[in-house]
């Protein structure tokens, strides 16, 4: 796969020799980005379908089954419906900010994917501070929600935006502290190095020494992406849909594109940070390792993150919604102390050189 890509890059340079080297580089980057964004958006579309199906079965229903065979065309039909619907602007709304909000939600959700490594050497860019980049760009997504709430000029969106801003800021701190432990083990903030450090079988994956951090990271990811049971930003029964109340048609759909893209990102990130990224789970198992050696690393990344994506749906179908002040308490009084304690535990483990992780 890498060889194929190398020959393709050389081909582009040969095909357009009259172009400046920089322009050819930009074209290659754009092609790479398209190769990532197209499957991503398709995954988002079918993730909504899977979500409705899975939650349907968990609640003893069938879920969508009318459009196409077994309802497979349902996401396409939904997309067409949303595209053809009218976009309604509330009177006295700030139109520019009202339209800027969904763009500010979706742009970071897609830009983050630039540094995600899917296999050894398969990424758009190998940034040296890629983990910080993920955190920084991911934290911009909150502007979409805050602006949506403010520009709508309506009370429920404003309440939703207030909740969202305070939740996201609190849980970003928790996620930041949880990731510090990962950085301490890997000794790098480069996602490629972090995955490379987990080579050599399941025992080397970071979820073993960082088990509580993995749990905290996943729960905080639920909050960051406004998923049930922490979806107080939308909370239909409390604030009738929060920030999205005044949005319709495509502007509404863009918010959900961003939310689902973020969910998939968090699943992939959990795999990269705690579950060995592109490394096969059969590494170091002799026969099994040889039998699965032909599987490309990207398959392992996608297979492992599919499990986390399923976990999102499972959690949503299982737990009732948290009360707002309880979510805040969970962040500041439970998670933050645990993460800080675990930073000291990891420091101790590093000093004592415990296990295969700290050598």
């Amino acid at each position, binding site marked *: 796969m890498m060889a194929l890509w190398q020959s393709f890059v050389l081909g582009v340079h040969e095909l357009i020799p009259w172009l*400046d080297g*920089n322009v050819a580089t930009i074209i290659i980057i754009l092609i790479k980005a398209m190769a990532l964004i197209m499957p991503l958006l398709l995954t988002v579309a079918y993730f909504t379908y899977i979500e409705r199906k899975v939650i349907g079965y968990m609640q003893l229903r069938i879920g969508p089954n009318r459009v196409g065979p077994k309802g497979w065309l349902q996401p396409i039909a939904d997309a067409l419906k949303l595209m053809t619907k009218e976009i309604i602007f509330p009177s006295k709304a*700030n139109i520019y*900010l009202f339209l800027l909000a969904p763009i500010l939600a979706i742009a970071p959700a897609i830009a983050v994917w630039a540094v995600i490594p899917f296999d050894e050497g398969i990424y758009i860019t190998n*940034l*040296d*501070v890629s983990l*910080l*980049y993920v*955190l*920084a*760009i991911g*934290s*911009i997504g*909150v*502007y979409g929600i*805050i*602006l949506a*709430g*403010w520009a709508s000029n309506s009370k429920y969106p*404003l309440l939703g*935006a*207030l909740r969202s*801003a*305070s939740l*996201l*800021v609190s849980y*970003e701190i928790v996620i930041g502290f949880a990731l510090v432990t990962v950085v301490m083990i890997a000794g790098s*903030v480069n996602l490629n190095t972090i995955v490379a450090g987990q080579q050599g079988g399941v025992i080397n994956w970071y979820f073993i020494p960082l088990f509580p951090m993995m749990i905290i990271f996943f729960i905080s990811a639920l909050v960051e992406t406004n998923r049930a049971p922490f979806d107080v930003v939308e909370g239909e029964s409390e604030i009738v849909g929060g920030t999205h109340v005044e949005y319709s048609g495509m502007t509404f759909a863009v918010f959900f594109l961003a939310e689902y893209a973020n969910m998939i990102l968090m699943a992939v990130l959990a795999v990269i940070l705690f579950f060995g990224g592109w490394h096969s789970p059969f590494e170091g198992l002799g026969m099994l390792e040889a039998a699965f050696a032909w599987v490309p690393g990207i398959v392992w990344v996608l297979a492992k993150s599919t499990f986390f994506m399923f976990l999102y749906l499972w959690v949503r179908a299982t737990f009732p919604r948290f009360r707002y*002040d*309880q979510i805040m*308490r969970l962040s500041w009084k439970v998670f933050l102390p645990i993460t800080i304690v675990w930073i000291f535990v990891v420091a101790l483990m590093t000093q004592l050189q415990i296990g295969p992780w700290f050598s």
Partner: protein
Amino acid sequence: MSSEQIIFYILSFWFIASSLAMIFARNAAKAVLFLVLGFFSAASIWILLEAEFLAITLILVYVGAVMVLFLFVIKMLNIDKSTMRAKFAEYLPLGLIVALIIIAEMILVLGSAQFGLEVMPSPARHGADYSNITVLAMQLYTTYVYPFELAAVILLIAIIAAITLVHKKETTHKKQNVSEQVNVRAKDRVRLVSIVSPTKEEK
């Protein structure tokens, strides 16, 4: 002009334009957004200087947290523009003097005498394996470890002081004890009593 120069001028233009727009914006929320754009342009210029750790930190801290809180506060405040404009003429002379002093100081400190090419040669390009964050960490945790720790302690004291100033013992309203609510069990709330119902004869 090399492509790098073109990028630099585009970014600087955006930086200056968004800073001006921030000052002249009438709407406070728009001013904050222009400031965010200014931070982005500054971060991009730093990335051009190969200081990617500083650039990302600028976005993470200022755009991701501080400006979010700014927007949060602006939404809550009801800013009355007329009272702010009423005293404009009164404050103008004082403001002008302060601005002139700041400009003079900046010319003295940031002029070509300190930052000219003779004093500070343009930074050399580094290879692909150059890690900005490692170099910075080596400096911070070896040469400057005491000032660094001292700054951290001062910040911690500031945080504690701010919290103690604001956090008063509440006497005016009742508060829920969440831990108590979370830890409650069914037997704390419901008491099941077995009652032998009287038969017809006993009545």
